[in-house]
């Protein structure tokens, strides 16, 4: 199986990125979008009317690349990578109150484990704290969806098809 693909090798890493303590963060090289990607993205975006696109789709960086590599490269989204960043960049988890959260904090989404450990799902940056009740529902986040566009969206309005148990927490670097 995959006989032809075994002969190919194109795993050039992306730009080097390190944690505050100097550990390398795994990154991946940029890809061009496939011809069908734009249509796929438009279909998804059309189902989220409140999304505001900041820039067009690109596979140069992903949500983790937006949060942790300043849009320069695609950052591997495996749990161990996110754990490494959390520890070595000294992020702390904030209480979920309007007093505690500030613009610029990260909102990190997890797929809640059913008896197992939770899994990293998505990350974005808080750009506006919501007012009223529930304030989180009105909080605006800037994030990037995979190879799709960079979008400003409400905190709970992320593409979650197939994911039933998503939780989130707020992080701030120390």
């Amino acid at each position, binding site marked *: *199986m*995959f006989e*032809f*693909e*075994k002969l*190919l*090798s*194109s*795993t*050039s890493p992306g730009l080097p990125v390190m944690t505050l303590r100097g550990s390398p963060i795994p990154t*991946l*090289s940029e*890809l*061009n*979008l*496939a011809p*069908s*990607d734009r249509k*796929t*993205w438009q*279909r*998804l975006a059309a189902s989220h009317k409140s999304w505001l696109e900041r820039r067009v789709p690109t*596979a140069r960086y*992903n949500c*983790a690349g937006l949060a942790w590599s300043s849009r320069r490269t695609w950052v591997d*989204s*495996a*749990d161990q990578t*996110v754990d490494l960043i959390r520890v070595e960049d000294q992020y702390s988890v904030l209480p979920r109150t309007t007093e505690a959260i500030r613009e610029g904090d990260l909102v990190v989404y997890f*797929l809640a*484990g059913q008896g197992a450990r939770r*899994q*990293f*799902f*998505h990350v974005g940056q808080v750009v506006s704290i919501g007012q009223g009740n529930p304030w989180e529902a009105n909080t605006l986040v800037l994030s990037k*969806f*995979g*190879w*799709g566009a960079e979008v400003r969206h409400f905190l709970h309005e*992320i*593409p*979650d*098809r*197939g*994911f*039933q148990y998503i939780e989130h927490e707020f992080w701030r670097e120390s």
Partner: protein
Amino acid sequence: MNMLRELRDAISLQELGIATQNPAALVSSLNRSTEVKSIRDSYRSGSITESNIRTVVNELLMSLRIGERFSGELFLAAVAVALTPFMDRFTAEYIDDLANLKLRELFIASAVAKRCKAVRMTMPKNLFHPFTLGRRAERNVRPLHFHSHAGPQLEVRPGSTSAFVHHAAA
């Protein structure tokens, strides 16, 4: 066969790939998806065969372009997740080969396959008795299961060139 092609073209699969790129989260989600469950059931019953999967995967890989995002990546990952519980030669080949690829374009599919491979390592070891079926059997045989309460289970799958003796988990 049609089920495989429907999954290949499924919008939900594309959107899943946009939603997250964490292999662990993808495995969890794919495991819960009805499409993956259907493929698993069909492979178990023999209505989807090794030959069907090879055909659809090879068709799909024709569109792989170096340096370009591969839209079939999540399909390859979904098939790996669907095949994970089966301890036969083909599923081992599919999952191992996909896990061992070093292609940026298939990075996420490979990462998902690595997780599937790890899950398989924790599953009960089965005795593996390969033998070649005659042409007649390949054409006509429905899956045969020989059960005994205490002993192993023999499974012969249509289109397969092997049969397997599954031992119940200790």
